[in-house]
């Protein structure tokens, strides 16, 4: 990336790190800058340490990068943890009444704000934060008006007085910084564009809305709860039935019930909740009622680290429910892709009457990113497959008719002439149980084969992955899902160091298109799989499908996402043959 600027704000949970974050995001996005924001926080409501980094650039920003240009510590702890990580040219803006910097790295500018003085004593939490923003914007060479606008919107409900007060202190800090602090050499650029800012969870929810989801249910579980919150907030506007259920078992079963009635039904959870849903997925597969489940991964095993990211649920997805059955599993590669993939999965789940799984993770689902609002196209193709919603022949009707495609026309309850029972016991074409009376191995085999024939159809419906970058690059970086952005940026940085790398990002996990992947990797001079887990879950899965073994792996399982330089340094150490398994250490102690 030619140019980017990153601000980090840190403090204790409850100190209101989010507010200044949102203010910056609004101002950047309206300025026509792309941005990406990631909040490293803990599973507590108050105290602890949360650290939000927001990075802006005229180009697309896909991760929070490697460098903090401006640090705004809201407490001494943040100052102490992060100051030493600043590089020459960066600056720290802080409330000098309560915070003091210790051993400042050379080349780092310290910009103390006499908050008490600037606010004339009255000092609310919010104002203290507002001051930091004001000073920061002035140093970035951004005019004051945008901040005034955002503050005005923000405090609209609170009334004129509060607006005045906040705009006032913000201006005071803005002017003070103008006089006291060097501005950054190049002022924050500006473009004609206007961007929307959203999280992956919001994008997943909107994708569901676009797909025509009419029934959404969930049981709260971090980091997936954002989907529920968006759905609940928009339920009435969009005519979506949104329910919070007693547990995840109820969730998946309720969603399947709604799907069986004919709605597009969706639910979201994280690994622990998904574990409780797996039996339900088996039902979806057996009665051939589609359902879409979003799994937002967090660091495991078990309760693990609820607020930290990981790509550790892959084998749980692969092993979900017992027996063999058709399904589709996709892993969106960025926030916009969260929006795009959901309708795609619904079409496949509907056409092949099987469960569909969207595999996200905390990084993707809770990260904030900017997108061109025109890319949020709600007018998506909707293919419900062979769904019978009104009497139209197909008589005599056999719900599980044996067909070449394995797909049997699905009639929704309520239609005269299509009465049938959908059973999780093995059944015949007519839905009658074969496990009672005379179990019939011939029929059993036919039904297994009918269902499994759908796998070929799903495979055809899903495109093989494509290689990005020069075929003859000296290294191929292979990732899946959420790591696309950071790998992409690492490749840019490698290029700066004269190392050419190309990129294979896997978006569809099941079906995988192993042959196509092999065709690509056969031509690679060196292959490295990058993933955010301990055991190389994707590497093991890829091997199970293709026998392929990469030259090296880069893994991380400390709860924090990859930063570009982690990958760059790992690739370099692997290229000089120092290791074929790199596990980068995470520097920022959040």
């Amino acid at each position, binding site marked *: 990336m030619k140019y980017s600027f990153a601000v980090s704000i840190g403090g204790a949970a409850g100190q209101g790190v989010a507010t200044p974050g949102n203010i910056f995001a609004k101002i950047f996005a309206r300025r026509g800058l792309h941005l990406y924001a990631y909040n490293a926080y803990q599973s507590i409501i108050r105290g602890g340490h949360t650290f939000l980094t927001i990075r802006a650039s005229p180009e697309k920003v896909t991760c929070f990068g490697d460098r903090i240009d401006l640090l705004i510590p809201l407490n001494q702890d943040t100052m102490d943890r992060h100051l030493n990580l600043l590089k020459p040219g960066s600056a720290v803006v802080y409330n000098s009444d309560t915070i003091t910097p210790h051993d400042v790295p050379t080349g780092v500018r310290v910009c103390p704000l006499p908050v008490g003085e600037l606010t004339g004593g009255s000092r609310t939490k919010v104002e203290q934060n507002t001051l930091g923003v004001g000073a920061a914007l002035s140093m970035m060479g951004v005019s004051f008006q945008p901040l005034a606008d955002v503050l005005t919107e923000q405090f609209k409900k609170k009334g004129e007085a509060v607006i005045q007060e906040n705009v006032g202190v913000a201006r005071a800090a803005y002017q003070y910084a103008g006089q006291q602090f060097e501005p950054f050499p190049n002022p924050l650029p500006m473009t004609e564009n206007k961007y929307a800012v959203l999280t992956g969870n919001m994008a997943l929810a909107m994708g569901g809305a676009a797909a025509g989801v009419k029934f959404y249910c969930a049981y709260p579980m971090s980091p997936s709860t954002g989907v529920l919150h968006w759905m609940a907030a928009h339920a009435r506007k969009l005519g979506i039935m949104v329910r919070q259920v007693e547990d995840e078992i109820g969730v998946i079963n309720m969603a399947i019930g*709604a799907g069986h009635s004919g709605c597009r039904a969706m639910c979201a959870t994280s690994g622990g909740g998904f574990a409780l849903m797996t039996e339900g997925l088996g039902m979806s597969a057996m009665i051939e009622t589609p359902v879409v489940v979003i799994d937002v991964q967090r660091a495991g095993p078990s309760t693990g680290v609820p607020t930290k990211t990981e790509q550790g649920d892959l084998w749980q997805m692969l092993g979900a429910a017992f027996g063999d059955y058709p399904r589709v599993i996709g892993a969106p590669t960025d926030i916009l892709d969260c929006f795009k993939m959901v309708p795609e999965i619904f079409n496949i789940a509907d056409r092949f009457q099987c469960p569909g799984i969207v595999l996200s993770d905390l990084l993707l689902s809770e990260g904030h990113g900017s997108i061109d609002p025109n890319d949020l196209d709600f007018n998506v193709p909707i293919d419900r497959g062979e769904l019978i919603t009104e009497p139209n022949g197909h008589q005599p009707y056999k719900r599980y008719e044996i067909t070449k495609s394995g797909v049997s026309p699905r009639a929704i309850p309520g239609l005269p002439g299509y009465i049938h029972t959908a059973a999780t016991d093995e059944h015949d074409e007519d839905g009658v149980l074969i496990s009672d009376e005379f179990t019939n191995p011939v029929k059993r085999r036919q039904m297994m084969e009918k269902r499994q024939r759908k796998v070929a159809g799903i495979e055809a419906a899903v495109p093989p992955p494509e290689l990005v970058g020069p075929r003859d690059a000296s290294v191929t970086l292979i990732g899946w899902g959420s790591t696309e952005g950071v790998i992409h940026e690492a490749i840019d940085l490698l290029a700066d160091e004269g190392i050419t790398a190309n990129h294979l990002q896997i978006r569809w996990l099941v079906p995988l298109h192993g042959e196509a992947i092999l065709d690509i990797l056969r031509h690679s001079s060196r292959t490295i799989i990058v993933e955010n887990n301990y055991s190389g879950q994707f590497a093991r899965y890829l091997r199970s499908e293709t026998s392929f073994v990469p030259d090296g792996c880069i893994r991380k399982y400390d709860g924090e996402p990859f930063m570009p330089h982690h990958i760059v340094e790992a690739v370099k150490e692997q290229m000089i043959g120092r290791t074929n398994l790199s596990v980068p250490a995470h520097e920022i102690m959040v």
Partner: protein
Amino acid sequence: MATVAAQSQFTVTDYKGKVDPDWCPGCGDFGVLASLKSALAELSIAPHQVVTISGIGCSSNLPGYINTYGMHTLHGRALAVATGVKLANHDLHVIVTGGDGDGFGIGGNHFMHTMRRNVDLTYLAMDNQIYGLTTGQVSPTSRIGMKTKSTPFGSVEGPINPISLALACGASFIARAYSGEPKHLTDLIKQGILHKGFSFIDVFSPCVTYNKDNTYQWFRPRVKKLEQDSAYDPTNWMMAIEKAQLWGDEIPIGKFFESTDMPSLHGSEPVLFEGGPLALRKLGISREVGRELAEELM
């Protein structure tokens, strides 16, 4: 009461399923199936407007034996599935059947929460105080001392009382029946179907193969119809909870409680106030609404 009410368009044969039940001869479940068919016929509800949903168990095989739409789901999950079915298409009549293990054992949590939500379903628990399909283990309604394959020396766990439980969870229609009293059962099922909200009927349905304690001979002299007690007032919750404690030489059957002023879940969810069943609404979002959603983010 005739099997077919004069005005009905349907007879019980209209509800005959694709296959005959393979329950043991004498199983109480035959009576429940028969009464359910009669109730539907007498209410003149078209087969295709009904969805019968069950879990897993001998009793849960019922949907395969009746000519309505059916779902034979997972053990213990019928009520959750049924809630989804009903909310997605509230024009359908949803009947849930299953066993005591299915509904009060593994399914207990859904039972509790479906009642407090007052989902408009009719739930027939075919209660034989045993796990039948798995060949005879203790159930949540088995009495202390009952000997089963999993309690060969007698159960030491107190049973649950489905009626008390339903009352405590705020169910709006609560009854107990006995498959040996088909007319009475049929009448209660009809009331349950007509009730707007969650209706629960705990039906004693003897397992002639594995439960040698709670047989027809055991039930017959004990069951006593609440309807015969003129002083009994099924709108009186306290009266109901007191009656529900009776178990011994006298076991009350009949309608314990009905409240008609609790809104059903689909009745209190504004999304369903207009526009008809969700399942029949058109998918997709207009460009305008889409734009509004995007604008929220700018």
